């Protein structure tokens, strides 16, 4: 008897909680602070920096030098000049080195912003992502290295390790799961993957910063009890290749806003 009463009460309390969270999410959509990062990013693209005193305006993000519109949704991709598959952030590092004369270390020095400490890299990612808003996610898979990156990324997705035996798949391998009250996209399911890939980068309210997909992976691995994923590492690029292809066909809505 007590159980029969308890269950509907719990179900309703859960629904109220979920509804309030949805309402909070809707209220957040207006006035996304990512605009502040995008505005700075647009400026950084044109700003002369480094020993070569050059801007990034000749940077090739995959659609030919200087073309930013639509570039994000066709990344990661193979680049002949570096003979590698690259995502946006690793490509920006390449351009900062080749065009501006920065060292690789300097280009990667502050990948993520923090309180009172903006990051040129984050601002650029926010702006370049915004230039693909509304477009179809379409990472190329025509080059053998692009196909290998996807498959290697998939292997890494299932790689269990660390004291908790966690893999990405532990949380992101099944439909309709959540961790505490945070819904988890099943990244092996196209619809969930499209929405997930289409909403990063995002302004994370709890962080007060725009966070990129490289950051998302770094923070996932931290919570998986792995050591630190290196910024623009091969594993990061392979995983992003996997996630982009899984999200293929979805509409890119980033930079979004999240809790």
């Amino acid at each position, binding site marked *: 008897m007590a159980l029969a009463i308890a269950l509907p009460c719990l179900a309703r309390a859960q629904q109220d909680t979920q509804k309030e969270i949805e309402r909070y999410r809707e209220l957040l959509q*207006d*006035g*996304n*602070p990512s*605009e*502040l990062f995008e*505005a*700075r990013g647009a400026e950084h693209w044109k700003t002369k920096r480094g020993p070569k005193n050059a801007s990034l305006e000749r940077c090739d993000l995959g659609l030919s030098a200087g073309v930013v519109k639509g570039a994000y949704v066709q990344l990661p991709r193979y680049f002949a000049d570096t003979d590698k598959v690259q995502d946006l952030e690793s490509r920006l590092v390449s351009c900062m080195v080749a065009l501006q004369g920065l060292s690789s270390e300097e280009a990667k020095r502050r990948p993520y912003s923090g*309180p*009172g400490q903006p990051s040129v890299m984050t601002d650029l990612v926010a702006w370049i992502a915004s230039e693909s808003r509304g477009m179809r996610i379409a990472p190329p898979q025509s080059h053998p290295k692009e196909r290998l990156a996807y498959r290697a990324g998939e292997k890494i997705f299932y790689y269990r390790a660390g004291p908790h035996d966690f893999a990405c798949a532990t949380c992101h391998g099944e439909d309709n799961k959540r961790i505490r009250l945070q819904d988890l996209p099943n990244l092996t399911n196209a619809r969930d993957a499209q929405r997930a890939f289409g909403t990063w980068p995002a302004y994370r*309210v709890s962080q*007060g910063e725009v966070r990129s997909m490289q950051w998302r992976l770094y923070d996932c691995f931290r919570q998986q009890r792995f050591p630190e994923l290196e910024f623009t590492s091969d594993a990061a690029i392979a995983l992003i290749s996997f996630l982009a292809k899984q999200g293929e066909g979805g509409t890119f809505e980033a930079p979004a806003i999240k809790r």
Partner: protein
Amino acid sequence: MADAMRIRANIVGDKVEVRVLMSHEMETGQRRDARGDIVPAHFIQNVTVTHAGKTVLSAQWGPAISKNPFVHFRFKGGKPGEKLTISWVDNQGDKRTDEATISGG
């Protein structure tokens, strides 16, 4: 100096609908940094929006307002092409003023 405010102002019915996104850390003064020291309070205390010489919004804020504040309000009497001036002053004496033109109709 802080980043520019991002302002949108357009006519909706008989009112002007204004959206302002401000760039500010809004540090409460209660957080501690990695070393354990208090991060000093740094937040917007006053916001003023004027139109045609009249104040259409006046706000007194405190540490409860979160980082990168967004304010959304409506007022009567504005016409397309007219200017709005938005100003803020924070507890450390920093300030910022930006202008926007009312659009649409």
